[in-house]
C-alpha cells in the first residue's frame, strides 16, 4: 500500500484540561483540495497548525510525504487569517526574503521571482508598498504570493478571508480558486460555505475535535445526512440577506 500524501493518525492535542483534537484520522492525496468546515472551537485551525508543525501533538502522528513536518523545512505553506505579513518590508521584499534566505537565490533572482508572484495575484503595481499601505485583501494576496513563491508541497489556508469584507473576500477567494485549478494540494479552513462547496473536491466536517463527516464536497453539502452537520449548515441559510438584482448589462445601441 502506498503512503498517502498527507496522513494524520489518531491525532490528539490537549492543552491543560481541554481536548482540542480528539483523535483525528485524515488522509489526503496529492492534488486534492479539502475544505475543513465546522463551528468555532471545533479544532479546524488547531488541526492545520498541527499539520504545519507549529503546535505540538499530544498523541498520534502527522506525516507529510512520509515525514514529520517541522517549521523551517519549507514543505508545508500556510496562509493565515491575520495575513502575518512583515510590516517593515515592502510587498516585494515580503515575497523575496525567504527566497534569498531559505531557497538561496541571488538578490536579483529573488526579486524577479517575487515580482512574477505578485503579478500572479494581480499586485505587481503595488510591489513597493508596505503592508500598512495595502487593503486587507491586497495584504492577503501578498501573503499568498509569499507562500507560493517557495513552492511548498502542501498549502494550508486558515480562514483566509475571515477578517475581510465581502468584496475583499471575493478577490482573495478568486485567487485561491485559481490555485485549486492548478493541481496544488490544499487544505482550506473557511466559513465561506459556497466557496468550499465550489472549490473543494472533498469536505471534512469537524466538531469538538473529531471528524464527523468526510466525503466528496457535493454530497457533504447536498445530503448533509449527519444531524450535527445539518444543524450547522442550516444556520447559514438564515444569513442570506436581501440583495439587489444584478444590474442588467447595457446592450450597446439600445
Amino acid at each position: 500500500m502506498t503512503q498517502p500524501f498527507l496522513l494524520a493518525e489518531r491525532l490528539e492535542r490537549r492543552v491543560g484540561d481541554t481536548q482540542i483534537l480528539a483523535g483525528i484520522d485524515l488522509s489526503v492525496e496529492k492534488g486534492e483540495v479539502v475544505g475543513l468546515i465546522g463551528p468555532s472551537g471545533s479544532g479546524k485551525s488547531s488541526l492545520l497548525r498541527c499539520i504545519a508543525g507549529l503546535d505540538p501533538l499530544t498523541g498520534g502522528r502527522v506525516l507529510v510525504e512520509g515525514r514529520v513536518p517541522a517549521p523551517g523545512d519549507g514543505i508545508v505553506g500556510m496562509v493565515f487569517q491575520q495575513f502575518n505579513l512583515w510590516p517593515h518590508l515592502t510587498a516585494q521584499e515580503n515575497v523575496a526574503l525567504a527566497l534569498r534566505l531559505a531557497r538561496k537565490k541571488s538578490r536579483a533572482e529573488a526579486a524577479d521571482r517575487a515580482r512574477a508572484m505578485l503579478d500572479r495575484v494581480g499586485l505587481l503595481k503595488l510591489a513597493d508598498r508596505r503592508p500598512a499601505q495595502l487593503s486587507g485583501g491586497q495584504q492577503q494576496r501578498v501573503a499568498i504570493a509569499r507562500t507560493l513563491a517557495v513552492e511548498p508541497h502542501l498549502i494550508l489556508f486558515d480562514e483566509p478571508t475571515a477578517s475581510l469584507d465581502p468584496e475583499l473576500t471575493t478577490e482573495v477567494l478568486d485567487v485561491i480558486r485559481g490555485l485549486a485549478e492548478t493541481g496544488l494540494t490544499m487544505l482550506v479552513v473557511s466559513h465561506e460555505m459556497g466557496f468550499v462547496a465550489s472549490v473543494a473536491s472533498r469536505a471534512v466536517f469537524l466538531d469538538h475535535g473529531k471528524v464527523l463527516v468526510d466525503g466528496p464536497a457535493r454530497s457533504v453539502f447536498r445530503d448533509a445526512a449527519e444531524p450535527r452537520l445539518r444543524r450547522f449548515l442550516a444556520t447559514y441559510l438564515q444569513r442570506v440577506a436581501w440583495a439587489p438584482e444584478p444590474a442588467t448589462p447595457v446592450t450597446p445601441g439600445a
Partner: protein
Amino acid sequence: MDWAFIEEALPALLRGAVATVAVSLAAIALGFATGAAIAAASTARARGPRVFAALYISFFRGVPLLVQLLLAYYALPFLGLDIPAIVAAVGTLALCCAAYAAEILRGGLALVPPGTVEAARLLGLTRSQAFLRIRLPIAAAAMRPALVGEAIMILKASSLISLVGILELTRTSQALASSTFMPLQSYALCGAIYLVINFTIMAAFRDRRRA
C-alpha cells in the same frame, strides 16, 4: 552674559562635553548589550536566569543611581578591587542602563505578533534568521522611542558621576563657576550644551517615515 566670558569658558566646557559624550556612549553601548543579555535571561525557560534577571532589574531600577555610584566608589576598594574611578563610574552607569534597556527589549519583543515569526519559519527561515530578520526589526520599530529616551536619560544621568570626581561637563562647569564667580552663566552654558547634545540625538533617531 558677555562674549568675553563665553569665549573664555567654552574651550574647557567643550572638553568636558566630549568627556560626557564619550562616557555616555560607552555606558549606553555596554548597557544595551548587557540589557540584551538580561532580557534573554528574563525570558529563559530555566528558573535560575529568570530569578537573576528579576533581582538585577529590581535592584538597578529601585536604588537611586547616585547611591549606586557611591556604593561602587566606596565598596570596590573595600573589597580590595583597585579599579579606576572612571571605570567604576562608567560601569555603574552601564549596569543601570542595562536594567532599563532589558525591560524595553523584553517588552518590545513581546509585542511582535507571534504569527509573523511562524510565517517566517514555515517559509523556511531558520530560528536565528526569523529572529534577526523578522522579530528584531519589528520590535526595533516599536522600541525606538523608548531606547532613544533611555539613551538621553543616561546622557543626563552621566552628570552624576561628577560627584565621584570625573571631569565631565557638569564637573567642568562647577569648576568654572567657582573660579569665575559666575555660577549662573556657567550653568546656563552647561545646560545649553546638554540641550544641544540631546537635541542632536533626538534628531538623528527621529522616525522619518512617520513624520
